């Protein structure tokens, strides 16, 4: 599978993931989600520039990308909310443009911004969906109670969703997308704004749904999350797929670990940078008086320490850590992921 970028971003403009077989034909089962060449423009902005992806039935497909990459747009196209300008997509075997109603009867959607009605109680929100799906009053109440229990919201069931915390609202939103027992679930940044405990709970929830055979498409900005949940990952940037593979493939691609060094004397930053570049054979990033470089294996750290010692540089800080999404991006695309916008930061802070 080959992804080509034509925007002239240096050495990594062509990325081949030769080790990855096409995920779409695993086991001969047709994919639950399959999109090819999706293009969506908003005026002068091209939100999707020919993105293709596919998700095997009963697995999690992680769509990983920075702000503005086109994750929400792709989700909205696949969930029949938005018609693509070009390309086509099949969800559960149905074309999202030609047979949207059929697609809708198979899917559940938890959008990036909670879709619950804040004026209604938790129970009423779920009963509303169940009634819309044609269930009887009694069956709707039962299903609502069941989901509220499953999501730990029974105590808040009778309260208006307006009074819920951000995490409770997200859980109610997820519960609402499960009322109709969808076979295919779209989760657009489901854990943004959640505290670590709620995030882990949600991850468990996703795993148990997948255990029941549900196919999940999950968008995220966090490599960590994709790593935890996804069977396959599609990395998108500026509306194009820049890499596809299993989490392990991607991490191998990005350099599993990063060596970070801060010289005691800031003037020696350039020396550290040069040494790191030479020994790692990769371009380091310099930020806040500290140099970071991909560390493909464990021999890099001692080598760097020895060499810096030889040239008389003392380090104030030396860490070997997991690659961040930003660094995966740098490795995959040759440019940095866009910084989070203010309101995204707010969302995270209010978690």
């Amino acid at each position: 599978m080959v992804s080509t970028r034509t925007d002239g971003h240096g050495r990594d403009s062509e990325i081949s993931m030769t080790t990855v077989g096409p995920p779409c034909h695993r086991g001969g089962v047709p994919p639950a989600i399959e999109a090819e060449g999706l293009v969506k423009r908003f005026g002068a902005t091209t939100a999707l520039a020919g993105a293709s992806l596919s998700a095997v039935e009963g697995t999690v497909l992680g769509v990983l990308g920075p702000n503005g990459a086109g994750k929400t747009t792709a989700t909205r196209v696949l969930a029949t909310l938005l018609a693509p300008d070009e390309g086509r997509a099949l969800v559960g075997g149905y074309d999202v443009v030609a047979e949207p109603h059929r697609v809708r009867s198979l899917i559940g959607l938890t959008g990036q911004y909670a879709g619950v009605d804040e004026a209604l109680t938790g129970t009423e929100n779920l009963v509303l969906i169940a009634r819309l799906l044609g269930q009887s009053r009694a069956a709707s109440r039962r299903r609502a109670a069941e989901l509220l229990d499953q999501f730990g919201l029974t105590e808040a069931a009778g309260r208006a969703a307006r009074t819920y915390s951000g995490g409770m609202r997200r859980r109610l939103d997820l519960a609402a997308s499960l009322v109709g027992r969808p076979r295919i679930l779209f989760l657009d940044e489901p854990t943004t704004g959640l505290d670590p405990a709620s995030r882990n709970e949600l991850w468990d929830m996703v795993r148990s749904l997948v255990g029941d055979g549900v196919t999940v498409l999950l968008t995220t900005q966090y490599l960590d999350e994709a790593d935890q949940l996804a069977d396959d990952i599609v990395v998108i940037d500026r509306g194009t797929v820049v890499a596809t593979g299993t989490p392990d493939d991607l991490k191998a691609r990005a350099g599993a670990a990063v060596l970070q060094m801060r010289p005691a004397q800031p003037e020696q930053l350039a020396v550290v940078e040069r040494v790191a570049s030479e020994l790692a054979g990769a371009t380091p990033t310099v930020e806040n008086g500290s140099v970071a470089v991909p560390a493909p294996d464990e021999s890099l750290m001692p080598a760097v320490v020895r060499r810096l010692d030889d040239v008389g540089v003392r380090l104030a800080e030396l860490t070997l850590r997991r690659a961040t999404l930003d660094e995966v991006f740098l490795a995959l695309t040759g440019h940095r992921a866009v910084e989070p916008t203010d309101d995204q930061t707010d969302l995270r802070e209010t978690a």
Partner: protein
Amino acid sequence: MTLDRTAPARPAGPALDAPAAPRRVTPAQWASQSLTMAWRSLVQIKHNPSELLDLSIQPIMFVLLFTFVFGGAIYGSADAYLQFALGGLIAQNALFLTIYTATGLATDLQKGTFDRFRSLPIARSAPLSGRIMGDVVRQLWSLVVLLVVGVVLGFRITTSPVAVLAAFGLLVAFTLAFSWTSVLLGVLARDPEKVQIYGFTVLFPLTFASNAFAPTETMPGWLQAWVAINPVTRMADALRGLLVGGPVAANAVATLLWGVAFAAVFGPLAVWALRTRV
């Protein structure tokens, strides 16, 4: 980017073991979904009692204010003024209430609730028709409040119960047609606060530059020309005719024609906005 696949376009069909879903909803399903949406719109009142204040206290305040503060000055006596003004107050209140359709829709669009609805296998129009049904109930509630308060203050209905029902019917018919402007506003503004600002910027001049609160003859000539054709004037006069007697037919027809005009212009625009801006 190419997906490494040789498989040609596969005919669309159910890939999963679920039975093939129907392609669209039946009229009975549409009705049931709309009623569910209407239920939702009315349950919102239960959890937001301040809305009931809007629906009840505000019309009452308007009746009291106009009757006792301006009534004497405009019409010589509060009593005579009430007999003249209640039809106008009802028309004005009905138009103000159409803002609910716009704010409700804008809130759903802003919060993502509308996306959730659109991802469900339900009629595309159900969220809208349900909301409008809920808003008709609000209209009727407010109308009853106004009539009861009016009667308590001395308003005398001098026509028949049939005429009163016709007044209800005319009001609902016009506001339903006028609601298309609200739908358009709600979709374009996507923000309940903006809806309030834009909405009242249009509704204040429309309702006050009419004969709802003061007789046309007391106004300058240039204004009279507009007031005479203003739909609020025509509806206020029709309501007066139906409640306290006087010419009805021409005013009712003019009101309905205005309704048709609003629906013909704003209906397609609203549908276009819903298709392209949502």
